[in-house]
């Protein structure tokens, strides 16, 4: 996929030039450092290590922030190029449409990965310098958090491409992207909680709940980060849930991967059918 690599390189360069890379990196670094420094203060009173508290805090933040950044990077990628007229020229080159989607996806992922690793890495480094040695298991959770945050970003980049490939007007794509964000980051969980409360466990067995949870990528992310480690889940507000969740970390990772691959394939399909 030579062409995809060339397009990915151009996307990264565009990201550097229009300050996307620097802006997202600074934003994530600032938030990670704030959470690290503030979050480590009250941790002592509830008996959690500062690192664990930081992982919980950053994960909660990631659920809202990373999908938003990912959608902002991606919603314009296809419809915007069509509108500006650059897509017709690009597609007249020896490049397959799937290579265009793959290249753009790789480029956007690289931008997001740099911002996540640099930002959260800075938070982790601040913590490592400032406190006594944390449990190795907690550092494992930290690494899982960074990797799954990038994964969550990839899910929403792919979803953003679906929005971008399905409509003509990039503004409409932007509207759909906001809808996707609201649905998965806010509405879905609120509706689920409402259902659980109203249902009183009659229809909503734990099996049904599990299926409903993995039907939302942000919940897959939650399960990966809040319930994979016993110490964390106790003060993440998800402890009750964790007892009923059967999914292991590899299974959750596979579900997240499916959440990346399926929307991306769908976006590529929509794009391949589109006429210039």
């Amino acid at each position, binding site marked *: 996929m*030579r*062409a995809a690599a*060339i397009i990915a390189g*151009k996307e990264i*360069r*565009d990201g550097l*030039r*229009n300050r996307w890379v620097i802006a997202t990196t600074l934003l994530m670094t600032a938030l990670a450092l704030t959470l690290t420094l503030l979050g480590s203060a009250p941790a002592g009173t509830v008996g959690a290590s500062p690192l664990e508290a930081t992982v919980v805090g950053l994960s909660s933040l990631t659920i809202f922030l990373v999908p938003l950044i990912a959608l902002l990077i991606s919603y314009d990628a296809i419809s915007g190029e069509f509108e*500006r*007229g*650059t897509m*017709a*020229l*690009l*597609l*007249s*080159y*020896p*490049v*397959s449409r799937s290579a265009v989607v793959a290249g753009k996806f790789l480029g956007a992922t690289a931008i997001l990965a740099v911002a996540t690793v640099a930002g959260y890495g800075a938070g982790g480094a601040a913590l490592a310098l400032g406190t006594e040695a944390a449990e190795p298991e907690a550092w494992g959770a930290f690494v899982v958090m960074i990797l799954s945050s990038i994964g969550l970003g990839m899910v929403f980049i792919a979803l953003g491409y679906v929005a971008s490939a399905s409509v003509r007007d990039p503004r409409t794509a932007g509207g759909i992207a906001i809808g996707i964000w609201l649905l998965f980051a806010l509405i879905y969980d609120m509706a689920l909680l409402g259902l659980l409360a109203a249902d009183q466990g009659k229809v909503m067995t734990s099996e049904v709940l599990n299926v409903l949870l993995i039907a939302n990528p942000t919940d897959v992310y939650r399960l990966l980060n809040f319930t994979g480690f016993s110490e964390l889940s106790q003060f993440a507000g998800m402890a009750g849930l964790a007892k009923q969740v059967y999914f292991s970390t590899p299974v959750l990772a596979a579900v997240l991967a499916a959440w990346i691959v399926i929307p991306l394939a769908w976006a590529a399909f929509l794009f391949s059918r589109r*006429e*210039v």
Partner: protein
Amino acid sequence: MSGITVCLREVSKSYGSLAAVKGVSLELREGERVALVGHNGAGKSTLIKMMLGLIGASAGTVSVLGKDPSRRAAVETRSKVGYLPEHVALQPSMTGEELMAFYARLKHQPVSANQEILKRTGIAYAAHRRIATYSKGMRQRLALAQALIGNPRVLLLDEPTTGLDPALRQTFYTIVQELSVNGATVLLSSHALTELETQTDRVVVMNQGRKVADGTLAELRQQAQQPVRIKVTVDSDQVTFFPRIAGAGLEWRRVSERTFELCCRENEKITALKQVAGTSLPVSDIEIIDPTLDDIYAHFLYREAAE
């Protein structure tokens, strides 16, 4: 098949109920410069986009360099095709050099060859500047430069000369000439035949999605049978004799004191001139007005409309 680079057979394209192209057959050969002329909305851009595989044909077959461009298998043959879009859109945040490097890599061409192309299109001096700072003419030069990457065998230029300054137009035609001498097929679209002047070997006229004429300029002239006008000015003392002497079977009209005009067919032109020359009248001026390209073009459009 040798020599044929682009081949369309009974190609149609419709968008819903709107038929943009209706049953067009067309063959373009190596080294040919072809003008594709028609109004806005006549189907020129649609035709070009089908040749590029950007859109698929609703009916009929399209073949470019032996492959159907809308198929996946044709992706690589596009490295031998150059395209200049109607509305040139180039990433404004990139410099000319960066843009050319990007496109050269996509076409598997050495980036080092770009400098030569940029010189040829006269934009090398601004190659290190951002495209956002370019004027329209500079953008057009850069857009032409990208179309020339990798010595294309087929060059599809969609309204390339619209709104160009004369200097750039000259550069443009010089390059087109060089390319066709080297065996490339060059297709230029335009909404006015006059814009293309004598720079093409062949003219294809499109109207409302149909091909209404196809041939060399001389052939089209012949087909159109537009009248030639001959104006003769004679010395004043001989005025009254002129119609009688030169008039054998031809209807000379007196348009002013000393000027007579004849509207005749292309093939009567020589006869009329011989008669005037044979009269030994003191003729002070002869003016022959051939039908203009616009007259010929209009002929094909109105003939279509009348049907």
